[in-house]
């Protein structure tokens, strides 16, 4: 029962028709172009894509942290918990940041200010949003450090970022993000800068933390392995659009979009005897000079004339499985 309830409720975050452009000298660079994405309550959504496809621009747009100028959210709606974030006055938006939506950045090395102790920085975060005495905030900071499994948190709180290892620093960042029990956590490539064993530990920590709360997570990454492990739903992004979105299992089992298929085939497999890895030929198009029609058409093995002239619409081919591709939708409807 509870499950169906969650399904019927409106999603925590609903992005529709988001356009984020960067106005550069050589014309506007369309980083995000007509993006639709929903993050249900208590679920983890993985946002996957190559470098430069607009993942980070999307997450920064949600936080309204697009560097402006030159960046600007041109069009679209971002509704978070019933509130349109894009129309919020700056002061109210500031209260949303950190308290309602927290963000973890890619680089734990440089996301902490080197001149303050980590405890102080967590305290700062707490006191930013809640009227708490310093002592109490400090106690909470130590508690948070313990929650993210930092050994000897009382002492670590008193240390500076340079005294901690990369994995520890990322744990501190997570502790900071959790400080005000946000409803949504945006993790922008949280493990990219870490080595594989630490990656696994951090992802385990994510799972553990998520189980205790009904926090939603938007996991932005290019690592399909991590997504397969942790995400409930996956959205695949290409050149500023979501090209395919589905629950994790069906997406990995039967990808519909040629791009997703290509991505999954590119994953090295220990069982394969092939000498060369599969690659998707070509590169992500330059966001200021996108090809007409479907942006994937120059690299798509199944591209037709229609793909080269017309942008395919978003179609829900199966319940909960959305695709943006002429071929896929034609093939299905033909069946």
């Amino acid at each position, binding site marked *: 029962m509870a499950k169906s309830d969650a399904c019927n409720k409106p999603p925590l975050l609903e992005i529709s028709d988001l356009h984020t452009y960067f106005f550069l000298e050589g014309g506007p660079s369309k980083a995000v172009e007509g993006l639709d994405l929903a993050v249900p309550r208590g679920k983890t959504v993985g946002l996957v894509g190559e470098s430069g496809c607009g993942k980070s621009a999307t997450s920064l747009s949600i936080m309204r942290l697009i560097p402006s100028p030159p960046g600007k959210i041109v069009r679209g709606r971002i509704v978070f918990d019933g509130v349109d974030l894009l129309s919020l006055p700056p002061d109210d938006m500031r209260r949303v940041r950190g308290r309602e939506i927290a963000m973890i950045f890619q680089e734990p090395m440089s996301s902490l200010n080197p001149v303050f102790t980590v405890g102080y920085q967590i305290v700062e975060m707490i006191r*930013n*949003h809640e009227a708490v005495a310093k002592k109490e905030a400090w106690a909470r900071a130590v508690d948070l450090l313990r929650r993210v499994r930092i050994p000897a948190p009382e002492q670590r709180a008193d240390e500076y970022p340079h005294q901690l290892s990369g994995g520890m620093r990322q744990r501190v960042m997570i502790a900071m993000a959790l400080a005000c029990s946000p409803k949504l956590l945006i993790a922008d490539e949280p493990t990219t800068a870490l080595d594989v064993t630490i990656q696994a530990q951090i992802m385990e920590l994510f799972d553990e933390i998520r189980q205790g709360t009904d926090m939603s997570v938007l996991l932005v990454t290019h690592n399909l392995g991590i997504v397969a492990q942790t995400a409930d739903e996956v959205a695949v992004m290409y050149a500023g659009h979501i090209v395919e979105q589905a629950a994790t299992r069906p997406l990995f089992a039967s990808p519909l979009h040629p791009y997703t298929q290509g991505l999954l085939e590119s994953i090295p497999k220990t069982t394969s005897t092939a000498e060369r890895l599969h690659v998707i030929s070509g590169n992500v198009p330059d966001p200021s000079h996108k090809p007409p029609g479907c942006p994937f058409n120059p690299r798509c093995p199944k591209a037709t004339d229609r793909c080269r002239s017309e942008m395919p619409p978003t179609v829900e081919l199966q319940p909960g499985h959305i695709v943006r591709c002429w071929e896929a939708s034609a093939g299905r409807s033909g069946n």
Partner: protein
Amino acid sequence: MAEETQQSLSLSRLALKKLRKHRLAMAGLYVLGLLYLTCFVFSDFIAPYHFDNEGRDLNHMPPSIARIRIFDAEGNTCRPFIYRMSYERDEYYRQVWVEDKTERYPIRLFAKGDEHRLLGFIPTRVRLFGVDQPARFYLFGADVRGRDLFSRIVYGGRISLSIGLAGVAVSFTIGMLVGGVSGYYGGPVDNVVQRICEMVMMIPSFFLLLALRASLPMEMGSVQIYFMLVVIMSFIGWAGMARVVRGMVLSVRSQEYVEAARAIGQSDFKIITHHILPQTLSYAIVSITLSIPGYILGESSLSLLGLGIQDPYASWGNLLSEAMAVVHIQSHPWILLPGVFIFLTVMSFNFLGDGLRDAFDPKSQLVGKEFGKI
């Protein structure tokens, strides 16, 4: 081994270590320490007379320091003493100073002098040195009204030395904030702020000083004058600071922890003051040290022209104003002594600033026995 020691040092410790090796800077530091200690903490104690204590008929008395005797009439060494001085006029109406050799006045340590409060709260009459009345011990001679120049230099240092610090404190607060805001927001804000800075910097500073002074009433209390000097000098000084801080903020702004701070919903003001400006501090320390002399000179120039601190209060600048007439310098050159103190202070600050700049510069390597030559 060498690397281990180097790694364990924090930036400020490392800078201190480098500073210690800079001989001129250390000399400057000690001179300044001595000057500030003398003029602020112990000024009343060290100065033998109150700054407005006039000696009757002692105008332009020559320095006693040259007339200290350590041999008595028989040629035996004895405790240093002086004779009382008075003058007569010769046929050209010039002062001719004579010593009254009938009575000796030994120089006493911890002599009784004018009343004062030691360290600001202990009422006492004891001063470091002095002689018994009616003789007067004027170490550096007397000014036109027969007041002790040494005492006036010590008291004047309170104004001249503090005005540099006060001026710098005000202008750097403004400069850091304006520069911080300008660099952080960028775009049109930056453009407007920088153009304003340039406008302020464009006007020749001394004329601006004079114009600002002229726009304020001439008759003011001494405290008001002091604050007025601080305000008008800071009004000129903030612009240069704001420009440089802005440049540094531009480079710090793109750091990820600044973005992270925005992502946790911190206010812009707090981000600027907490996360950005501290990064510019090492530059600020150097720049502050190097710009203090400008304020000291500014005060001196205004006071020299009679627009700053007014008699009977002393500052090194208005003490020098007497030396504007060449005739005076010829007949009693000791009135130039306050200039020596200005010179000493300015030089010391410059050396110290130089040393600090080298010390904070990460590219300047420690080359010494401990670290070995490369």
